[in-house]
């Protein structure tokens, strides 16, 4: 009966449903502090009739559009830092190409299972991570010193100027290589991973980490998106309503930022991810089809 409904629905029903779902995801993504891609891929892959190749291609574009739209304001306001973001983006965008090529070559049930496991892991990270507003960095490492990765952050809320520097840059680079692979493999975007690495591992102030994460996404998702595009894994009928819906929803989400309780929205997102992760795992293992 369900399959019949899917087959008999007019062509516009699914893109319209996709637009509405993405609009809602956009509303909750901003106050929850996550990019759209991490919600989009498991939910759309789990409940829409599209092949995972096209869902991942669209997921990357959703994440890319959000990052591209946000990056200019973040750079302009000094939240995103080129010298912090560029070395990490270089490694992550190169590895995202590898992730995309591997993801498109693997059997779909393997990717589906790996996606389920990854989403459940992200749920755990989101539920447990406690970011630090201004992490203590006693001394920068040699690489950070050579690349002049430091600065002064002017807090727009208090007007206070806070000097910052980073440490453990080589470890950060290795972790970003892994993040890039995951972004390309699953089309997730990777803000959920960028932020803890920049903030908790390298010691960038929280707002600088969040801003620079958005800038890095704009480069990482660009390179992975090209691979999906050139492999035929981008369908305008899926990608366009998703991008438009998510961007319109995000505008409302940004307005809700000061109104709704971030903790409540975050709990909702963690619950959604848990459900979508279990669905992806069940689908991949053939026990929840």
């Amino acid at each position, binding site marked *: 009966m369900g399959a019949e409904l899917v087959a008999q*629905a007019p*062509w516009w029903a*699914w893109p319209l449903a996709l637009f509405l779902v993405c609009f809602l995801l956009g509303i909750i993504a901003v106050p929850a502090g996550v990019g759209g891609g991490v919600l989009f891929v498991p939910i759309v892959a789990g409940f829409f*009739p*599209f*092949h995972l*190749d*096209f869902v991942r*291609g669209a997921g990357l*574009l959703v994440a*890319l*559009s959000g990052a*591209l*739209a946000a*990056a*200019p*304001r973040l*750079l*302009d306001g000094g939240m*995103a*830092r*080129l*010298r912090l973001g*560029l070395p990490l983006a*270089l490694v992550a*965008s*190169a590895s995202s*190409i590898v992730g*995309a*090529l*591997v*993801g*498109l070559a693997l059997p*779909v049930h393997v990717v589906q299972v790996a996606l389920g496991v990854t989403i459940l892991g992200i749920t755990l990270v989101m539920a447990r991570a406690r970011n630090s507003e201004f992490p203590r960095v006693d001394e920068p490492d040699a690489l950070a010193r*050579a690349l*002049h990765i430091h600065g002064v952050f002017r807090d727009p809320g208090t007007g206070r100027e806070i000097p910052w520097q980073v440490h453990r840059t080589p470890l950060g680079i290795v972790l970003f290589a892994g993040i890039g692979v995951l972004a390309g493999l699953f089309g997730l975007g990777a803000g959920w991973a960028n932020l803890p690495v920049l903030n908790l591992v390298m010691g960038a102030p929280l707002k600088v980490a969040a801003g620079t994460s958005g800038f890095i996404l*704009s*480069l990482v998702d*660009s*390179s*992975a*998106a*090209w*691979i*999906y*595009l*050139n*492999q*035929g*894994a*981008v*369908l*305008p*009928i*899926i*990608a*366009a309503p998703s*991008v*438009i819906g998510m*961007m319109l929803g995000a505008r409302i989400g940004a307005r809700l930022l000061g109104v709704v309780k971030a903790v409540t929205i975050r709990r909702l997102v963690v619950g959604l991810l848990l459900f979508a992760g279990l669905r992806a795992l069940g689908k991949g293992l053939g026990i929840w089809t």
Partner: protein
Amino acid sequence: MTDNEQGRREAALLYARILAWGTRVGLAMLVLSFLAYAFGLVAPHVPIEEVPKLWSSPAPAYLQATGLQPGWDWARFVHRADMLSLAAIAFLASCSIACLAAAARIFFRIGERPVAVICLAEIAVLALAASGLLVAH
């Protein structure tokens, strides 16, 4: 503010300005081309009502069914509505290249060669991804 700090700020602002314009143009192209596709205003390569028969199959099957090759083959049909949407997406995925080139020029000028070289290396990575030379098997 020292000359280097001024230069770094200039690089960030120029990057932001180019990216803001590129994103606006790319998103407008995507919306317009998709509307043209959805409402049949411009002839498509794959009729929109035929796509649901293909969207449950993997990407290689879609390419085969629509007579497209992996890589830039879609660009041959860029005058058709659905391929025009792909061109808009390609534009969005490319607009960072101009920003990186502009930032690299400023970083070279202020003597920050390592960051400038990283900008050029990132352009090379994006160009490699866009080239269509890398194929999944």
